[in-house]
């Protein structure tokens, strides 16, 4: 996130703060699928007074935290292939049923990473234009079309400072028009029929500075 070095006054969120900000918006009792990578942190910082049931595409509901070193079941892993545990009340099921849950509108909230998000909600999070890497998609497309609410959690810009929030995606789409809200290290932004609407900005960052880091026009909720 070196792109922010030029704005020392901006109190951008670190990964854990960003995860906590996302977790704040996940209600008690939700069924949640966290994408691999950054979104996985959300479970670690969720408010302890909320009962949230985490789903994993490989056939788990009621996932608990990582096991203590050396105590884990080697077959019990999450979508990111990291060891996890199962809470009382959890259940195992097969892959096809796991995707019934994901594609069928049974997951309340999914939190996904993104390469790009467009102002109309289009999501690109599975392939770039780097032809030297084999393509890989996993369960991202099923989740993106199937979860009731799609949250994106990402740095506001790429490592080299280019915006990830755009008028339209240049990378291949994961799914069209699916993103509901975007949480970045700089802002919380809703995708609305009128495009991006900023709900929150980190302290020390002006509207113009946020707009300068964003590839599509921003409206601000406090103006409406």
């Amino acid at each position, binding site marked *: 996130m070196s792109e922010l070095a030029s704005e020392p006054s901006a109190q951008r969120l670190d990964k854990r703060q960003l995860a906590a900000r996302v977790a704040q918006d996940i209600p*008690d*009792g939700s*069924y949640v699928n966290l994408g691999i990578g950054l979104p996985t942190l959300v479970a670690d910082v969720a408010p302890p007074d909320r*009962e949230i*049931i985490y*789903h994993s595409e490989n056939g788990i*509901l*009621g996932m608990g935290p990582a096991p203590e070193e050396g105590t884990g079941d080697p077959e019990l892993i999450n979508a990111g292939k990291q060891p996890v545990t*199962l809470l*009382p*009340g*959890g*259940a*195992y*099921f097969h892959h096809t*049923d796991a*995707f*019934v*849950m*994901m*594609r*069928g*509108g*049974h*997951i309340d909230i999914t939190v996904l990473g993104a390469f790009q998000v467009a102002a109309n909600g289009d999501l690109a999070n599975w392939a770039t234009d780097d032809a030297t890497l084999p393509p890989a998609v996993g369960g991202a497309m099923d989740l993106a*079309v*199937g979860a009731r609410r799609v949250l994106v959690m990402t740095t506001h810009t790429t490592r080299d400072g280019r915006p990830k929030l755009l008028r339209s995606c240049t990378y291949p789409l994961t799914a069209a028009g699916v993103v509901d809200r975007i949480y970045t290290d700089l802002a919380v932004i809703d995708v609305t029929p009128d495009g991006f609407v900023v709900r929150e900005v980190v302290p020390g960052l002006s509207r113009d500075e946020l707009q300068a880091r964003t590839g599509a026009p921003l409206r601000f909720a406090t103006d409406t």
Partner: protein
Amino acid sequence: MIDKRVASLAVAVAGVRDGDTVLVGGFGNSGVPVELVHAVLDLGVRDLTVVTNNAGSGETDIAALIRERRVRKIVCSYPRSSGSVWFEKLWRAGEIELELVPQGTLSERMRVAGAGLGGFFTPAGADSPLAEGKEVRVIDGRRHVFEEPLKADVALIKADRADRWGNLVYHSAARNFGPVMATAAALTVAQVRAFVELGELDPETVVTPGIFVDRVVVA
């Protein structure tokens, strides 16, 4: 905290409305959520579309709903049995609509609805009059008919035990349509023999994970 247990049948079926499509579990008399159906009867709702394998028998549950003229349409595979007197009477009088669906197609239409799919091609019924008016396509040398998802407002099912997260296990052949119906409705209600504490059900043996269940009630 999640607690899907409710204290009464009336609370269990609260919100079922006139015109709803209601899935009702069971095959013959096995696995029918009799008490839940009676609770819906007590609600007084009308113009229901009922999706169930058989069209009721005798004077109770589905047959009672039909007798009381609460059912506008029934979607099923086998409405005819020795006890389906009320269905047959109203059907002959033109007072109830019947959509006949081959049993595997009935089950699969609910499954694809619950799975977020847009429909499927099946060879079952493709050579029969039940395919009339539907898209027919030859796949791999065989006729297939296109069938659409069957999504519902409510599912009423019967299971054996439930915990507060709504996890369900069933009893023998009473399982039948319960698991698929649970996935296909906006509101899924299960009547069970008993509640158990969270963690008592072996995670390897849960048949319907609680994500598909909204309310559980002992009956």
